């Protein structure tokens, strides 16, 4: 399997494309054109679109991708599904403010909401796709719908957890520090060193105990 990455130059979110033959699973379509152009360049057809959480910088390209590939199935946690349909919970209402705080004033980023997902899950969900296993684990804390996606036991798509050099943020709308400490943090603490981490922002890396220590895991 090839794992491709496309990064939005504005919000710096990563979209990952897991490709097997000419078919693909898209994780976090973060831009209206970028992920679709990557698929087109590689001659890939997405069969699934998965979301790590409901924030707009991870799903801004969801509706355009659905329009272009209507057969693709959108799958996310139930709280992620609810959140992406709410401009406050998906952060798009404050995205221009957020980008200004990040040193990118003047960006045009209008509030948006998405249509409901095709499939949702409330508990850990495992799916098999073209000989690969994807395990989606709900890990609320950063947002109610936050999810980590484990591919074949060796690659973990973490969304806004384990971002290089950044502490976990639990104070944005819907975030909850207590739930993060009780649910997400123990799960992340148990991750084995050596795992390939594909974060929602920044470069992929190999998990080490040193890295875990920096997150207090």
């Amino acid at each position: 399997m090839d794992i491709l990455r496309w990064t939005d130059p504005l919000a710096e979110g990563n979209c990952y494309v897991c490709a097997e033959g000419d078919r693909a699973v898209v994780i976090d379509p973060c831009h209206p054109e970028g992920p679709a152009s990557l698929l087109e360049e590689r001659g890939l057809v997405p069969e699934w679109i998965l979301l790590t959480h409901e924030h707009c910088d991870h799903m801004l390209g969801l509706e355009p991708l659905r329009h272009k590939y209507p057969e693709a199935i959108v799958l996310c946690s139930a709280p992620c599904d609810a959140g992406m349909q709410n401009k406050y919970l998906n952060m798009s209402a404050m995205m221009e403010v957020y980008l200004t705080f990040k040193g990118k004033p003047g960006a045009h980023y209008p509030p948006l909401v998405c249509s409901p997902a095709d499939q949702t899950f409330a508990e850990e969900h495992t799916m098999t796709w073209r000989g690969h296993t994807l395990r989606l684990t709900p890990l609320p804390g950063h947002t109610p719908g936050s999810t980590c996606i484990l591919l074949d036991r060796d690659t973990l798509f973490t969304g806004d957890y384990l971002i290089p050099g950044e502490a976990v943020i639990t104070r944005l709308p819907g975030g909850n520090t207590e739930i993060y400490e009780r649910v997400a943090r123990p799960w992340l603490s148990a991750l084995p060193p050596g795992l390939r981490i594909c974060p929602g922002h920044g470069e992929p890396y190999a998990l080490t105990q040193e890295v875990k220590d920096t997150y207090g895991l």
Partner: protein
Amino acid sequence: MSNLEKYDKLFLSSFRVKPEDLPTLTYRGIPAWDSVGHMEFMSEMEETFKISLSTLDVLDFSSYEKGKEILAKYGVTL
């Protein structure tokens, strides 16, 4: 509940401050009112008063008193 009471309640619950702190409360004047806290606070402000603040007004919302001036532009009298 009056608009002023709703306004004050938002500050009190968001930033865990005392009523006597409100008149001098400013953005970045307390740890809880930082950039992250500001975004959640402004989202709650919009939902409470059923308004949609412009990005410039969100960025200009720099104190308890300044916020009153901004809300007045949206027809929210305190």
